[in-house]
């Protein structure tokens, strides 16, 4: 709480001297030692600390990698492999950085879903949430820039696809595109600026993280009940040692998962094509972004239709960026007075639906949009022919033998005939991604605004303290 009185007492002369001039120890003490924190934070609340560790790991390993990396198209691929082969412990540091990007996103998604579930974006924490959204945007930019640096096939062609998105913007699009690339194509100049920006952005993230923590410490933590702290004595405990040890435990468990990837499957989260050196003349068969960007990629590809004068390509870009933009509006879209979904029985169901929608969108993003999710019926064979009189016709067959026989008969009779597969009607990934995209936006733009006005909350406690007592005693203790 911003209002809470500082409990820091300088013990030595030096501390006192410093405290009068730059009260930095006092700041650290009040923010991370004695900060009153709700007693009832569960493990979902440890991901903030985990994310701080992720950022530190990425910056430290990144600075080290930059000591050995060469940002030119002829040498980038080889210099990354040189790090893996010749630099002492380079393989370890590079694997950590590469897996670290994925772990960072894994943690940030859990952190965001936690915020969504417990209503951590609501007053008085709107600015906290907005700063978090800014961090998320910066993270996506940093990850995209970093993915280009090894200069593999996915680096080059992925960058190409993403930069081409900007070309969809009317009037200024092509100008922006060539400004970003610094030329007619993604080349050496692009790689060098991407490297520079990839080094810069993490420090901007760190800066926004400081604002994020500041904005957290003004209203204090939200908690699973969504009730604000009413009685500091009964509702809170000091951050240290209670939450340092709890966060510490969670961080180490997280590091175990991290280490499993680093040591046993460093490449499993990436794409094998990125170990083929970039070749502007050959595009990989499937351009797929890293897993953490898949939902947004699925939304982009789900828009295959024009709306009025807006063409599908531009519309896809609008929807993709809209999917992030809508997060910025969330504090004002959710009309419910109750923060935590624990006490919102209907909203809770929609929330779980939203989580599933995001995961299904990831699946769609990784799949070919034309592939069937559920196939309805068998593929059929169609023989199209033009007979000697010039009359065209088609016949559909279930079995191959009669189809081939019919084709051969037509050919023998002087007609031209060809055989093709007619795909069975199916529910395809495109359809799934369109439905899930619709749900994604409906969740923010319709469900949360309307539900907040109509839903009847259930079982909300009066205070944090009361909810804690409720754990042990099924009958709610009388409010104190």
């Amino acid at each position, binding site marked *: 709480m911003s209002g809470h009185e500082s409990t820091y007492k300088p013990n030595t002369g030096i501390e006192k001297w410093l405290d009068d001039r730059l009260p930095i120890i006092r700041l650290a003490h009040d923010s991370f030692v004695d900060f009153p924190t709700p*007693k009832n934070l569960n493990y979902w609340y440890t991901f903030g600390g985990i994310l701080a560790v992720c950022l530190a790991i990425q910056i430290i390993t990144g600075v080290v990698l930059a000591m050995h990396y060469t940002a030119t198209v002829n040498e980038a691929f080889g210099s990354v492999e040189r790090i893996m082969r010749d630099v002492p412990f380079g393989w370890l540091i590079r694997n950590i950085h590469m897996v670290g990007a994925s772990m960072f996103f894994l943690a940030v998604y859990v952190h965001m879903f936690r915020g969504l579930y417990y209503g951590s974006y609501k007053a008085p924490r709107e600015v906290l949430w907005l700063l978090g959204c800014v961090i998320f945007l910066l993270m996506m930019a940093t990850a995209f820039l970093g993915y280009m640096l090894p200069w593999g096939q996915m680096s080059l062609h992925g960058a190409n696809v993403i930069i081409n998105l900007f070309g969809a913007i009317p009037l200024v699009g092509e100008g922006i595109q060539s400004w970003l690339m610094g030329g007619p194509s993604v080349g050496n100049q692009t790689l060098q600026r991407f490297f520079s920006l990839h080094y810069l952005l993490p420090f901007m993230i760190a800066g926004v993280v400081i604002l994020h923590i500041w904005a957290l410490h003004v209203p204090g933590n939200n908690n699973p009940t969504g009730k604000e702290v009413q009685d500091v004595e009964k509702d809170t405990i000091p951050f240290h040692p209670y939450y340092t040890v709890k966060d510490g435990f969670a961080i180490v468990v997280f590091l*175990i998962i991290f280490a499993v990837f680093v*040591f046993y499957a460093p490449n499993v989260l990436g794409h094998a094509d990125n170990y083929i050196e970039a070749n502007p003349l050959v595009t990989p068969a499937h351009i797929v972004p890293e897993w953490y960007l898949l939902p947004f990629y699925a939304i982009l590809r789900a828009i295959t239709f024009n709306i009025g004068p807006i063409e599908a390509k531009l519309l896809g870009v609008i929807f993709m960026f809209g999917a992030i933009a809508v997060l910025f509006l969330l504090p004002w879209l959710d009309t419910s007075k109750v923060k935590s979904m624990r006490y919102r029985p209907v909203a809770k169901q929609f929330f779980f639906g939203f989580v*599933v929608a995001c995961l299904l969108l990831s699946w769609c993003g990784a799949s070919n949009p034309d592939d069937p999710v559920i196939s309805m019926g068998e593929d059929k064979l169609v023989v199209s022919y033009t007979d000697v009189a010039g009359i065209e016709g088609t016949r559909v067959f279930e079995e191959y033998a009669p189809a081939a026989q019919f084709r051969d008969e037509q050919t023998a009779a002087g007609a031209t005939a060809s055989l093709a597969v007619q795909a069975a009607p199916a529910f395809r990934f495109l359809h799934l991604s369109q439905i899930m995209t619709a749900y994604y936006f409906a969740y923010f733009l319709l469900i949360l605004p309307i539900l907040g006005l109509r839903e009847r909350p259930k079982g909300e406690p009066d205070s944090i303290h009361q909810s804690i007592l409720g754990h042990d005693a099924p009958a709610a203790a009388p409010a104190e």
Partner: protein
Amino acid sequence: MKLFRPLLVGLGAMALGLTAHAAGGAKHAHGPDEGWPFAKVPAGQLDSESVQRGFQVYKEVCSSCHGMKLLSYRNLGEKGGPFYSDEYPNANDNPLVKAIAAEVEILDPNPDENGDPVYRPAIPADTFRSPYPNDQAAMAANGGAMPPDLSVITKARGHGAEGEGASYIYSLMTGYKDDKIKTKVGEDGLNVNYIEFDDGETVGTLTQPTGLYYNPYFAGDATPQWDGDPRHVPYGGFLAMAPQLPEGRVEYIDGTEATTSQMAYDVAQFLQWAGDPKQGQRKSLALPVMIYLVLLSILLWFSYKRIWRNVAH
């Protein structure tokens, strides 16, 4: 913990999805029946004798078309490499590595004092000799197909799980159907090679284009060459590399019988090493790190329980 279940279901679906975007129609690659020694958890290591034999296969067979520009001869004698010896911690001094390098004549990157190119025997610090002076020459010599560099080929195939790249090499090298190829005279009087399939619903004849070879593990689309049911086209596609490892293609120095699968196994393991020469170090460090982290988490758990023991939460 109610939040957990849908998340788990979703993660499962995602894992499914991530494996679903496999390369177009190629047969799923498989390793040897007993699995790869280096993929064993918790600390599997490469079979160094197999890697040595694999180097022999590379040297005598693959290297005539495929370069490995990220490797130097010294790598062979470095820790984790096939010819490492405790006596020579500096691979540059390893006589075996020196001898292997000296067998090869390379173009010195530095010209002589008159500016003329210098050809000399390689030294351990030199990179593997490339079979062609440039990509154009490589393509011209191979009917327009560029033999890929093999330095990181095991990382560039499969989906990143340990051993998938090696399995691809193993499957590809043993997967040719050369024993099934029949020949007939085509309409233009030239010989046409074809393969007859009769495997469940995949019934028909696959015509092999001239200069290309069918392999079920090679990513591609065989539809245009297939005269059977187009809904059941055989797996895989055609590649410009002919079958390379007939029985006895190399004579192993250590006397191992050079069967096709033995050579494929060895060369796959050599390429696995080459793609990630520090994997031995990675695997040796893995177990201590995991043990440390698990112990630390246990300590923290008890610390946490102790600190929170009097706090209702």
